[in-house]
């Protein structure tokens, strides 16, 4: 039955790590490594149901035929393929059964390629990632393949039969496991021709290029996914939770929460005070030595060390005297 699901929506299966969604084997020359696949990712969107506004009952979607002006049962439908505008050919279950299907559940390695795509190589558009787990008898071969891939910086391009259909995939080492990423077929990837993109000969001044490079380098760093969160979903969950508990929903506030800049100033002050304390402790010994040696700070435009202790070099905020001029106004 799943073979006939041409829409490919995959129904409402809710994957968990507990259950493998595929069993088969990695085929690699004469080597066969029996493995299981587990979905590596989970989609965390928030789904809503449609209710009738007046009675709040879940609405039903009926199959309706506009020609007969009638609700019909699903059993009364056939599959049609629109080969031209409003022109359909009926595809029966027999037609589908006649399509030669691969039933061997295998991950057939076709080629080894660099794990990171070269610059002139098209982007590998990933559909879905799976964790690959070896069956007990395949553990050693699995470890060997993973080690070699990791060592050589390679990924294996392979064809996998999942749900009776063949998909393109890349097998990558990932920590102490391997990850299989199913890829889109080349003809599924849209061309960029229709986009309004800047021409190759856009004139960029060296100064602009330099500025852009500076900006980029200032913002360059390692990628730590844990720094990022789906803030929209969190906010939405909070809204839902508040409603469930009957609380009023906190309006997203346009204005800043009070004291933000003040907090920043406080953090700054705390930091400077901490640094001063650390400095004072360190300087105590040094200061004693210097006193013995009778050294004074070098007079000059920029003495290396401030002469008095940091204590009386106080914060400015208040010192200046008022201008007389202001009083007259």
């Amino acid at each position: 039955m799943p073979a006939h699901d041409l829409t490919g929506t995959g129904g409402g299966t809710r994957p968990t790590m507990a259950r493998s969604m595929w069993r088969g084997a990695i085929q690699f020359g004469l080597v066969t490594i029996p493995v299981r696949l587990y979905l590596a990712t989970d989609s965390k969107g928030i789904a809503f149901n449609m209710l009738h506004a007046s009675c709040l009952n879940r609405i039903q979607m009926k199959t309706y035929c506009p020609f007969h002006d009638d609700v019909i049962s699903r059993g009364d439908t056939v599959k049609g393929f629109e080969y031209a505008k409003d022109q359909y050919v009926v595809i029966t279950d027999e037609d589908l059964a006649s399509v030669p299907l691969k039933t061997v559940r295998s991950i057939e390695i076709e080629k080894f390629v660099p794990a990171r795509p070269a610059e002139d190589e098209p982007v590998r558009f990933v559909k879905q990632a799976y964790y690959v787990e070896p069956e007990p008898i395949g553990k050693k071969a699995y470890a060997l393949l993973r080690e070699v891939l990791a060592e050589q910086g390679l990924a294996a391009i392979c064809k996998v039969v999942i749900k009776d259909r063949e998909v393109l995939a890349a097998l990558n080492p990932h920590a102490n496991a391997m990850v299989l990423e199913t890829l889109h077929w080349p003809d599924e990837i849209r061309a960029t021709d229709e986009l309004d993109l800047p021409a190759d000969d856009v004139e960029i001044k060296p100064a602009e290029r330099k500025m852009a490079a500076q900006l980029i380098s200032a913002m360059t760093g390692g990628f730590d996914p844990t720094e990022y969160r789906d803030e929209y979903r969190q906010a939405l969950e909070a809204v839902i939770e508040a409603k469930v508990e009957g609380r009023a929903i906190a309006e997203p506030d346009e204005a800043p929460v009070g004291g933000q800049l003040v907090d920043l100033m406080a953090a700054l002050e705390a930091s400077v005070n901490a640094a001063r304390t650390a400095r004072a402790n360190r300087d105590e010994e040094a200061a004693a030595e210097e006193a013995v040696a009778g050294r004074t700070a070098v007079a000059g435009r920029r003495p290396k060390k401030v002469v008095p202790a940091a204590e009386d070099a106080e914060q400015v905020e208040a010192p200046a005297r008022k201008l007389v001029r202001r009083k007259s106004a």
Partner: protein
Amino acid sequence: MTRRTTGEPLPLQFAPTASRLPERIVPMRPTDGEGPFDDPRYFFEPWWPGIRAFVLVEDGAVRLRAEALGDPTAAFPELAGVAELVRSDGVVLDATLMVLDARGRPSRTLLERRLAGEGGSCGSGGPGGRAGTSRGSAALVASDLLYLEGTSLAALPFGERRGELAALLSPSSWCLAGRGFIGDGTTVATALGALGFRALSARRLDAPLRPGPARDAWYRVPVVAAPRELPPFLAVLRRLPL
């Protein structure tokens, strides 16, 4: 050629009105310093990660002039509120304009989005009031006072201008005269490095305002974000993307 090197004075044109404020301000330009130093004649404060802006308050109206921007007032409507915080009139502030994210940290991304004109239209047009989180809130840290009651303070030493500034501006959660420290620049630099700041502003307290290159009146000193033996809470603060 529309780009200017930072060394040249930047002419800022103001609308020709019967203003007591100048039509054109040639800003003082900081000298690039080599490293932090201690000197009791200098006032040290963070180099706030934003854009330099001149805020003009006259007859209760606020005008904003920023480097390389025509009219940033449109992108920062909140700043009209500065007029209420200033206890005088005919005022020009030299300030840094930032955009704070939901957690109150200066965000370059949000600032750039605002400057690109996205903030106004996209933010408020978003569904369900998501505007608040995506736009951030504007924040202004004033560092110098150029005009008071329509009169230039250029001849006053910085220390006195700063004192006037502190007396002039009622602190609020989004607009303040910046916190600063006299003398121990190296200690302040250590603290700023730990907080994630990239640079330190060092202004000479006895220096008058000087259009163009500041020479020794004002240094922009780079700060090295070196890990130090600081309390753990500061280690957390160090992650602030400043």
